[in-house]
C-alpha cells in the first residue's frame, strides 16, 4: 500500500526531478562508501583535497552542488570512479579507428579507468579492456 497523498505527488513529479534525485543520491552514497572503505573521515578527505573540512561538509551535506570538477577531484583522491558514463561501440570505434559507418551496439563499452594509488599519482590512466568488435553496417 501507498499513502494516497504520496501517490498523488509522485504521479505528478516530473521524470527529470526523479532522475536528478536518484543520480545525486547515488553520488552521495558512493562518496560515503568510498570514504568508509578507506577509513577516511570528512576531515581527512578535506586534507587530501587541500580543502577545509567545512567545504567538504558543504559538498556532502548539500550546501554546494557537486560540479564535474569537484567529482573529478573526489575520484582522483578516492581512487575510484564515482560516476560512470556508458559508451556505445560506434562512439568508441569512431574515436579510436576513425570508422564512419558502424552500427551502434547498445551495451556499454567495457572501458575502465585504472587509478594509481591516490598518493603516488594524480593522473589516472585510462585502460580499455577487450572492446567489442564493431558490427559492420
Amino acid at each position: 500500500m501507498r499513502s494516497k497523498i504520496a501517490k498523488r505527488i509522485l504521479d505528478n513529479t516530473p521524470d527529470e526531478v526523479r532522475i536528478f534525485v536518484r543520480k545525486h543520491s547515488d553520488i552521495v552514497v558512493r562518496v560515503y562508501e568510498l570514504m568508509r572503505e578507506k577509513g577516511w573521515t570528512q576531515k581527512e578527505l578535506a586534507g587530501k583535497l587541500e580543502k577545509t573540512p567545512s567545504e567538504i561538509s558543504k559538498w556532502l551535506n548539500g550546501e554546494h552542488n557537486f560540479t564535474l570538477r569537484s567529482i573529478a577531484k573526489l575520484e582522483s583522491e578516492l581512487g575510484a570512479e564515482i560516476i560512470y558514463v556508458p559508451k556505445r561501440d560506434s562512439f568508441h570505434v569512431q574515436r579510436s579507428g576513425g570508422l564512419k559507418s558502424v552500427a551502434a551496439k547498445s551495451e556499454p563499452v567495457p572501458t575502465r579507468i585504472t587509478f594509481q594509488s591516490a598518493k603516488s599519482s594524480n593522473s589516472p590512466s585510462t585502460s580499455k579492456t577487450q572492446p567489442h568488435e564493431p558490427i559492420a553496417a
Partner: protein
Amino acid sequence: MSTFELEIWDDETERVTFYTVRWQDADLSETEKFFEKHEKSHKDAVQHLLSFLLDAMGTDHGAVDAFFNRPEDGVFGLPPKGRITVDEIKLSFPNFPLRLYALRINDREDLVVLFNGGTKTSQTNQESPELNLKFREAVSFGKRIEQALRDGMIVIDEESRTLKSFDGSDNITI
C-alpha cells in the same frame, strides 16, 4: 495520554517499509499532514523529498546513514534492546527548505517511521519555532515507540519486514 496508531505509509518499495504515526482521533497521519501542508507552497521541494524517500531510499539504497542528519538531542534508549534515534531526513541539495523527521528502528536500513516536519527558517532548528516543535513531537513519538519495542508490545517481523503488535496483529496502538 493520547494514543496513536503506528501504520504503514508505504510498503511498495524494495528496500524500506515506511511507517507513520496517526493520532487516534485524526483523519490524517503526521506525515500526510506534512505533505499536504507543503504540497502547494513548496511544490518543487515536496516532489524532490518524495522522490528521495521512495526512489533513492526505498528503491535504490535503503535507509543508509548518508541520508540522515542526527541531531544530538535526538538520541535516546539504551542497548541491548536497541538504541532509538530521531533523525532528520537529509536531502543534500543546496538551500533545501523542508525538514522531515524520521526514526530508523534499531538503526536498521529497512524500517523507517516518518513523522512531521516543517520549513527551516533559520540556521538552526532550535531557532525555527515551528520546526523545533515538530522535532520535539517526533522525539516524543520516538520515545513511546522505543518503549513499546522494549516492552515487547511491538515486535519486528523479519520475514515480512514489518512491525507487528505483540499479538501478531498489524494494528499497532501505542
